[in-house]
């Protein structure tokens, strides 16, 4: 288990214990984190699990592929910290990760 913190646009913060190997969209849905829908089930087809990754953690993530990169262009508030939560898999190296859900995704 690792700890992942999801912070909503209104500042509400939730610490979730996530089993290693689980993607962070599934973890959010299972734990009722608002603002992460995962409409396509985690195949990077819908961009409804957009999150902003805190700067300290961005270099620790696997780089994004072309599909994820393109799908993020569908979101309103993309910036350098943007990722799809379904494409981030929980690993020991990510223990303590902080994600913020974007304003438009609620």
């Amino acid at each position, binding site marked *: 288990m690792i700890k992942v913190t999801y912070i909503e646009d209104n500042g509400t913060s939730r610490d979730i214990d996530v089993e290693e190997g689980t993607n962070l969209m599934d973890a959010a849905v299972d734990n*009722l984190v608002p603002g992460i829908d995962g*409409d*396509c089930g985690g*195949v990077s087809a819908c961009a409804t699990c957009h999150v902003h990754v805190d700067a300290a953690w961005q270099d620790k993530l696997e780089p994004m592929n072309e*599909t994820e990169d*393109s*799908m993020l*262009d569908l979101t309103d508030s993309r910036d350098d910290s943007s990722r799809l939560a379904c494409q981030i898999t929980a690993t020991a190296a990510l223990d303590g990760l902080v994600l913020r859900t974007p304003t438009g995704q609620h």
Partner: protein
Amino acid sequence: MSETTVIIGGGQAGAQTVMSLRREGFEGKIVLIADEPELPYQRPPLSKAYLAGEMAKDRLFIKPAAFYDKLDAELLLGVAVESIDTQKQQLTLKDGSTQSYDQLVFATGGRVRRLTCSGADHPAVHYLRTLGDVEAMQARFSAGTRLAVVGGGYIGLETAAIAAKHGLQVTVLEAQATPLVRVACPEVGQFFQSIHQQAGVSIHCDTLLESIEDEGEGVAALITNTGERILAELVVVGIGLLPNVELAASAGIACDNGITVDEHCRTSVANIYAAGDCTNHPNPIYQRRMRLESVHNAIEQGKTVAANICGKNTPYAQVPWFWSDQYDVKLQTVGINMGYDQTVIRGQPDSRSFAVFYLQAGRLLAVDAINRPAEFVVAKKIITQGLAVSVDRLQDETINAKELVEA
């Protein structure tokens, strides 16, 4: 007095309506009634990872049970609705109980079209729509099994792809000259035909199934109009979906290839709405009515219904989109290509990365993007905003896909 919204159907549209009602501020009682015994689940993995046992059942559920408790939504699962009295605004369930409503939502989806030929009731014959359908065939889904897929549409081809990956011997029967002929241009059909053939799948086009005979020991023989006799331990039929309209029609609600709704997802009867695969709805972007079978449409119509129940007066105006995963190929389709008079292909199909733009009188109607997510994204923008495109630029790979929006 508190209002009650009742939703009939526990698929993607039904679940979304529950969630969106609370998100829109609905404070009354919410009751979702579904004839399947499971929590609302995602159907797309059924013909892909879940069929092959690559995905845990819990992962299929759209939300965990606790989610509905938190929303204070009551789920009545495993019970069908018998009849509706639209005057009294009351449902009678198959178990004899009654349920009153102030607003009623049809999210009844569809059911598979079934074979009618002789031998169609052979025990090897299966369909693919529900979790129960998949569980019924999983025991036969193993390496070495001969699988015959009837119908070269998305369901059939996705099933063929996951089966080939798991070592089944796969034959696909397709009535038309190429697969996917109802939804895509011949080049796209030919591309999918070729990637299946490369994976060892045998695709028989221009071939009609005439009858099924019993070979004994659970084996079916598929007899075709071309004189072939194809043996299979497992037959998966994917020949289309029929909208579940009978309950609505019997209640006097207008239906025509689906439950007829207006731009607010309202049916012809007051306080009754419909969402998802079961609806025949107007699309303002294409300026015609359509019935769609897609996750995106189910979700967005669920949101529209919820907003309108909450008095928001929100019209439904979405560009449809779809996806299909087969082997290493991700197809993303945006728009509806019906009525196209020109196709423009960007990239080379042989490279397994290309996009087909469908135009009508120079206007972009739809795109099939095959391992081309950037083209999918830019096309969605072009169609949604009604922007102009030029054929020369679409074909020109030296122009970055993001720059295809005309300045």
